């Protein structure tokens, strides 16, 4: 029951961010879907006592893979799906606590929370990039097409 509530609300949450970032109208439900999958995986990992940094990494990894699948399916840039997809994982609450601790002159807690926020956002970024690179490697085996990062590198090489 708890899981279903989380699923529904993370879907609405991410879809709303799709609207704020002005995603194409027909892509908005899929943005919500990407975010809901990423959040549910994060949520379940937290429930079984995985640390928040690792859970964020895996959540962002899944978000990027699902976003890549949708991007190929709809022939739209991947950025449309993964930007709103990672929003539920962004450590907004921890960043807020950092600010609050520093304003209240509790510097020790402030540094601790700041480090946590930094590690989580680093994990999210790494998850996104790793997923993209792994998909590129897979595509190399199947030869079905190039991702933009790969064709960019190839175009640069050809110029030399």
């Amino acid at each position, binding site marked *: 029951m708890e899981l279903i509530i989380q699923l529904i609300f993370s879907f609405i949450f991410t879809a709303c961010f799709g609207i704020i970032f002005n995603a194409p109208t027909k892509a908005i439900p899929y943005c919500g879907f990407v975010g809901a999958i990423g959040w549910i995986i994060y949520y379940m990992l937290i429930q079984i006592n995985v640390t928040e940094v690792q859970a964020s990494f895996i959540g962002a990894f899944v978000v990027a893979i699902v976003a890549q699948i949708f991007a190929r399916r709809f022939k739209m840039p991947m950025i449309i799906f993964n930007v709103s997809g990672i929003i539920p994982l962004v450590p907004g609450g921890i960043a807020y606590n950092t600010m*609050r601790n520093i304003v209240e002159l509790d510097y020790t807690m402030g540094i601790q929370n700041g480090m946590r926020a930094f590690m989580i956002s680093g994990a999210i970024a790494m998850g996104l990039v790793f997923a993209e690179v792994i998909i590129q490697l897979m595509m190399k085996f199947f030869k079905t097409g190039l991702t933009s990062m790969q064709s960019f590198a190839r175009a640069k090489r050809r110029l030399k």
Partner: protein
Amino acid sequence: MNNEQQYELALDCLLLAGQLMMESGAETYRVEDTMLRMARSQNIEDAQSYVTPTGIILSLGKRQITKISSIPARITDLHKIAKVNSVSRKLSGQMITLEEAYEELKRIQKTNYFLPIHIQLLAASVASSCFLVLFNGYWSDMPAAFVAGGVGFAVVTITQEMTRVKFFSEFLAALVVGLIASLAVHFGLGIEMDKIIVGAVMPLVPGLIITNAVRDLMAGHFTAGIAKGAEAFLTAFAIGAGIAVIVAF
């Protein structure tokens, strides 16, 4: 049309495509990739570009002229990125000519793809209240977060129109959000001030810029990555400062 004019048209077309994508918040390496891909489809093999978040330099080769396009402001507009992307796809697939592509890009530049402002406000409000459920907040705090999120987003949009100083509008929005949250708690309309504030500032958080900054760094675009990182840091600092004023009192 002679060769010279053809090159000039290609240069204008490519530069416009790059400018539109960069203004809408695309990744730097994707902008460069799109421009080079379009150039190759027009049999221009030795095109060179240098893209930063604040300006684009594009040259079609050693003998051709070079043009610069400056980018004064960047917003998040995923719809426009998708539109420019589809034009570049069509041009690369030789489905449209260069003239048609240029006309279409000019039309995209003039069109406003944003949904009506009240729908955006509603989305910001709903997102703010949904945040409470995801982070174990109280259900009774949802109305306060709904109002605070909507008002915060409205303030940032209106002051951005009026002043054009991003730092100030974000600071003001965070201040208003903090004020509404603390008033709601004061009058018994909310329980946890912290969660209401965090939920309500989520629509202002520079999520896209942070993601793009890291991806640009990984693709080897260090100038762009650092510049975008600075922009994201400034936004985060503005929000933090606005909230800090409320928390301190």
